[in-house]
């Protein structure tokens, strides 16, 4: 009895001593309950109903109907196909170019900082500005196509936005311009961290520049590359603004630029199918979480 009392007293005392700790984390706890935990539960709840803002009183229970519709919706799978088509090109280009530029900057002693500053500049521009510029530069009457037609590379201007195959690769190119600077900076920091002794030892063993890059630099950059791959995929699969600002709400006449989040937006805010849109959100979230875990399994971190 005595012992328990002493323990409890000690505990109460520790709580009292740490009382400001509770006070200081309370804003996060409060906000988390309202905008973290509650939405999480609500998103599950909503998937079981037909619910619209226009007629909230007509909320009807549909069971797993929304789930079945989402998983068998050809338009949803079209949007999933589109985003993977886009991301496989984007992630390859962005990180490949980032790696190339980082390797080049690593070689120069004068101007390294200057180049890093320039290459990182597009990162600070907004997506709306990016698409305003990109849309114009790539348009059939824009400067790039005009030059290509004059040079004879293109027979006639290409209307890429209405084509079935081109929107996703072109968007990947535009996004590569904006984002490769992050890869450059992260990979460059990784290269500076590789111990010079490794290179010296390799040189003594007669390894050329390419072999040193292939067998020393690349393996040493594994953690950075894994980090980039993960973040890119999580962000990329949630692409919205790029397509919303450049195509119509269907993602083009043939849904050639429809992304999952654009589809979700359209279902929720254009069609007012809140329950269905919630199901789409949940399916997408599960997909992203699953892929992220898969990535960590394929490329286990060293630690």
């Amino acid at each position: 009895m005595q012992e328990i009392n002493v323990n409890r007293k000690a505990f109460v005392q520790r709580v009292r001593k740490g009382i400001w700790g509770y006070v200081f984390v309370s804003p996060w706890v409060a906000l988390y309950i309202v905008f973290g935990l509650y939405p999480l539960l609500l998103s599950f709840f909503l998937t079981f109903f037909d619910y619209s803002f226009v007629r909230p009183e007509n909320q009807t229970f549909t069971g797993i109907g929304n789930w079945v519709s989402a998983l068998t919706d050809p338009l949803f799978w079209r949007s999933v196909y589109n985003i993977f088509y886009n991301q496989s090109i984007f992630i390859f280009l962005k990180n490949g170019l980032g790696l190339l530029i980082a390797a080049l900057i690593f070689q120069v002693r004068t101007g390294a900082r200057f180049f890093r500053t320039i290459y990182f500049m597009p990162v600070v521009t907004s997506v709306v500005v990016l698409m305003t510029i990109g849309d114009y530069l790539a348009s059939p009457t824009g400067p790039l196509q005009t030059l290509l037609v004059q040079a004879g590379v293109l027979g006639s201007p290409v209307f890429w936005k209405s084509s079935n195959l081109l929107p996703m690769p072109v968007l990947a190119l535009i996004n590569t311009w904006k984002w490769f600077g992050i890869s450059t900076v992260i990979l460059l920091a990784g290269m500076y961290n590789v111990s010079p002794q490794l290179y010296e030892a390799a040189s003594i063993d007669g390894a050329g520049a390419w072999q040193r890059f292939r067998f020393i630099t690349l393996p040493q950059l594994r953690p950075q590359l894994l980090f980039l791959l993960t973040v890119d995929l999580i962000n990329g699969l949630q692409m919205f603004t790029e397509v919303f600002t450049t195509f119509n709400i269907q993602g083009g006449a043939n849904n050639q630029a429809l992304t999952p989040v654009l589809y979700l937006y359209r279902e929720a805010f254009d069609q007012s199918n809140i329950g269905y849109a919630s199901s789409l959100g949940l399916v997408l979230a599960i997909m992203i979480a699953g892929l992220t875990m898969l990535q960590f399994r394929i490329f286990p971190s060293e630690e």
Partner: protein
Amino acid sequence: MSNGKRINWTEIICFTLLALGAALVLYPFFYMAMNSVKPGREILHNPTALPSEITFSGYQAVFGELDIMRLFRNSIFLAGSITLINTTFSALAAYAFAKIPFPGRRHLFAYMLSTMMIPGVLFLIPTYVIIYNIGWVGHFEALIIPSAVSVYNIFLLRQFMVTIPDQIVESARIDGASELRIFLGIVLPLSRPALATVAILGFMGSWNDFFGPLLYLNQPENWTVQLGLQMFRGTVPGENAQEIWAATTLITLPLIVLYFVLQEQFVKAFANVSLEK
């Protein structure tokens, strides 16, 4: 070094390639600025040429028809208050997690980190339903309150604050300083680099955000620069295209200036790495 000459050649080739690449990266920015003073008809019919005359009609339209000053006021207010509030509350929680030993701290911290695993897209619809029901749609609260504190920023700041020696905090406690006083007077000033990171990411994120304002700020008087630009794009006829480019230039300029002033902090904030050789 004996092979100094060879290294020099490599460096010259790399430097040349980098310079060419830099020109390509800068080209779109140059284009944007050039088109903002180029007559719209030439933008349409002569896209590759330099302007035959310089016109400021685009900028006049942007200040008149678009009322870009109102967009700027809204964006500065929104990004400014989100940055200030979020940094304050995140730092407060970070300090508790780093320096105040309260029962349950470890578990709460681990739980908080686990909430980061859930992809943001899941929260889109339910958060909208909640904010709609509170009645915040059309008001800045809809964007400010949900971002009043964030897990990632708490984590970043906490990782920095644990490196502050415990003795500093402890001796202030023995001297009778209150926790709030220690936080404001000692820990915050020492955490300046981490605070800069959080503030830069927060300000840039909300300045460049499009989706949030699109969902919640549907009245023109509440539009931010990004939303205003997108709406403006649809209304300008082709022969006045310079107006769009003037707006685009003006919206991009503040961040570019900020970036050049604070470039080291910007790069560190994004890459979350130090760049010392």
